């Protein structure tokens, strides 16, 4: 929702607004990217309030993009199994109504119907749980915008499959999808329930089948006002993420094109596997060189504080302090013509793999107004990043995320004309 990050949301404001005082997100100075202001020791956005809920309907973007990242994610993509335009409309409408219920902490229908022989509308495992800041964000894949559904003309101008990029190492079972659902919440069972029941609607309407999914724990990116969290490599992730309205407008939201696409954005999802054991046996000085930052403080190797701007020109004994292949150097906007993307990733684990190694990594999700923003950055990173020795991009998909519907409408209703 446009504006939720400024005004906060109903219950949260009531519960901690007074205690937060001048630290409230609305009143606090923006932690501008690279700003020297050190993080406040006590950030209200880090507090978990399970009674907090976000609105699904609105006039701006969908929730779950600018929303301060919650602690857990269940991300799933779907294949359309119907070629009927009407079936797609019904699915998006049923999903929209159900998501509005779920985000408000309500069931999507009866759990225990009294009618003989009836199955439940809602599977029930989120009963008596709080809304837990649940957001469910719906994405539309490239195949939606085709003649099959009479939507070829509605295709957003920059919608396409991602290019093949250096170091792509995809498992065919973890690629693509015609629809995506990103459910984030501070209670993992609330996120799980949301996707489970929405997947059930997809099958019940005969419209879509599950494709691939990632269950993530632990946010690996910071939103406005949040302490920067750490990825499973132990490093702070998202120190220089997009936070200002100006940057959202410049790098994330579509601001032109048909009205129904404005405040839309492109979602790129990558399942990035980490070679955990190799990383853990790598000396920390080398880990620091791989990232270009100090592990504990998050400060660039040229500074002392997390938010110190990296000095890419600084040398010691003739070699750059931040190595030429350091992750931070290759990803930085300073070295990419000012380019930024919004990162909203989560750590994940799939347990232990067939070799007895920890099977874990990062569900990288980024939002940008042009898929080329991601491609440009990943082209450089995939080719040269020192981190590549310890990671593999094993899954990938792209979706257009339309804006939030107004009450009484459903996601992307206007694209059906």
């Amino acid at each position, binding site marked *: 929702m446009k504006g939720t990050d400024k005004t906060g949301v109903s219950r949260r404001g009531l519960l901690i607004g007074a205690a937060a005082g001048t630290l409230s997100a609305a009143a606090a100075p923006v932690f501008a990217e690279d700003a020297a202001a050190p993080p406040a020791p006590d950030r209200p956005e880090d507090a978990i309030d399970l009674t907090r809920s976000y609105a699904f309907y609105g006039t701006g973007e969908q929730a779950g993009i600018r929303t301060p990242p919650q602690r857990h994610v269940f991300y799933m993509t779907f294949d359309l199994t119907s070629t009927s335009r009407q079936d797609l409309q019904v699915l998006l409408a049923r999903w929209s109504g159900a998501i509005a219920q779920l985000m408000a902490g*309500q069931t999507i*229908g*009866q759990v225990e119907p009294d*009618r*003989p*022989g009836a199955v439940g509308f809602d599977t029930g495992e989120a009963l008596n749980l709080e809304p837990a800041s649940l957001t469910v964000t719906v994405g539309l894949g490239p195949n939606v915008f085709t003649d099959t559904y009479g939507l070829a003309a509605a295709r957003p101008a920059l919608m396409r499959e991602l290019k093949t990029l250096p170091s792509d190492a995809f498992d065919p079972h973890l690629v693509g999808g015609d629809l995506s659902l990103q459910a984030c919440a501070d209670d993992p069972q609330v996120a799980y329930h949301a996707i489970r029941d929405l997947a059930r609607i997809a*099958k019940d309407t005969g419209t879509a089948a599950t494709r691939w999914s990632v269950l993530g724990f632990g946010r690996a990116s910071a939103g406005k006002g949040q302490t920067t969290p750490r990825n499973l490599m132990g490093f702070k992730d998202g120190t220089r993420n997009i936070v200002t309205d100006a940057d959202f407008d410049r790098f994330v939201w579509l601001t032109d094109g048909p009205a129904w696409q404005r405040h839309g954005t492109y979602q790129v999802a990558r399942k990035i596997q980490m070679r955990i054991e190799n990383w853990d046996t790598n000396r920390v000085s080398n880990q620091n060189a791989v990232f270009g930052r100090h592990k504990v403080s998050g400060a660039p190797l040229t500074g002392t504080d997390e938010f110190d701007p990296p000095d890419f020109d600084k040398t010691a004994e003739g070699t750059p302090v931040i190595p030429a292949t350091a992750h931070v150097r290759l990803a930085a906007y300073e070295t990419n013509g000012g380019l930024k993307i919004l990162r909203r990733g989560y750590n994940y684990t799939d347990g232990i793999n067939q070799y007895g190694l920890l099977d874990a990594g990062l569900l990288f999700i980024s939002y940008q107004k042009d898929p080329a923003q991601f491609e440009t950055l990943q082209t450089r990173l995939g080719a040269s990043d020192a981190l590549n020795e310890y990671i593999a991009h094993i899954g990938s998909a792209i979706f257009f995320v339309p804006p939030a519907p107004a009450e009484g409408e459903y996601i992307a209703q206007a694209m059906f004309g």
Partner: protein
Amino acid sequence: MPRNKSLVRPVLAAGALLVLATGAAIADASVAPVTNGAAQVAITLTSDNGGSCVLDHASAPAGPVTFSVTNKTATALTEVELELDNRIIGEKENLAPGLPTVSFTLTLGGGSYQLYCPGAAEETQTFMVTGAVAAVPTGGAAAILAEGTKGYAGYVTGVVDAMVTAVGRLNSDIAAGDLGKAKADYAIARPFYEKIESDVDGFVLPGFKPTDNAGNLDYLIDMRASNLDDAVGWHGFHALERDLFEAGAITDATRQAAAELVQNVGKLDALTKTLDYKPEDLANGAADLLEEVQSSKISGEEEQFSHIDLVDFAGNVEGAQQAFAFLEPGLKIIDPDLAKKVADGFASVLALLDTYRDPSVPGGFKPYTDALKASDATRLSQAIQALQEPLSKVAEKVATAA
């Protein structure tokens, strides 16, 4: 905001009718106007009070009545039904905010009907029809469904009769020590049980407790390694499968197990002839057979030695499809959309199964090898999943048919 709303539909007691009569949900008690020969009634779903179903007219003259349903803002509501004495007369599903208005027309006799909106603040409201009471329907959905259950009973009897013959042949092969013929006849005998399993899996032999597998006819006929009860041991089809396909030898124990299977299938035959069915039994049975496919065929655990899992798979699907086919004429009257969705689901599963046919092997389907499972299990499971969800809705529809 705990999720504890409308877990159970409130019982409609006499007092509830009084509440309804004075409640705000009925916008206008005046009689619906008649246009083009049908009384016109609009039902509007809104988010008021957490979900409200509003009738613009709470009564209509006897005759055709068209209900036009619009979900304006009610995210908690997805369906409305018109009921008479708790029997569904007509309905609309898949309602959600933003979708166009949908309508259904019914010819109603005089009487007190109920508009049922599952999940609404007031789930049930009265809709009065004034004028002559309709004659008791003779050819209605309930009557057609009742006919269907008789047809299905005949199907079950026929399947069990064929099983008696096939198991007898298998027993003769084993008694004669003909391993090759026994293996072929095993594959031929197997699918009969899989077709009707959901109707017979509760049989307990006289003198046994329900918890004792030694008296559980389903255990004695169809137990497998994954539900082995050590106290009772191996019996039935899979005891034979293990000897024929894993050990590759017919022993005295094999002969004994085969003879016992003949006896137990005989008992099954006698019991099934006494069964009669309600329409919802057919629907629940069909759903149970698809659960069987998901839980033991796609995993390959049912036929772990013979690998004829796809033969059993086809048997489960045929049994489910037959049960549904006997319900379909009645369901088409109650809920044609659902009937079509389920019929389409069966058609796509059957078309997919056809691609695995191999007439050169006993049972007629490719062996379900580890390689085939690795490459195709997801596809098979997805097709069954797409059928399971709509099929799970059939029982309540046929149970409440008028």
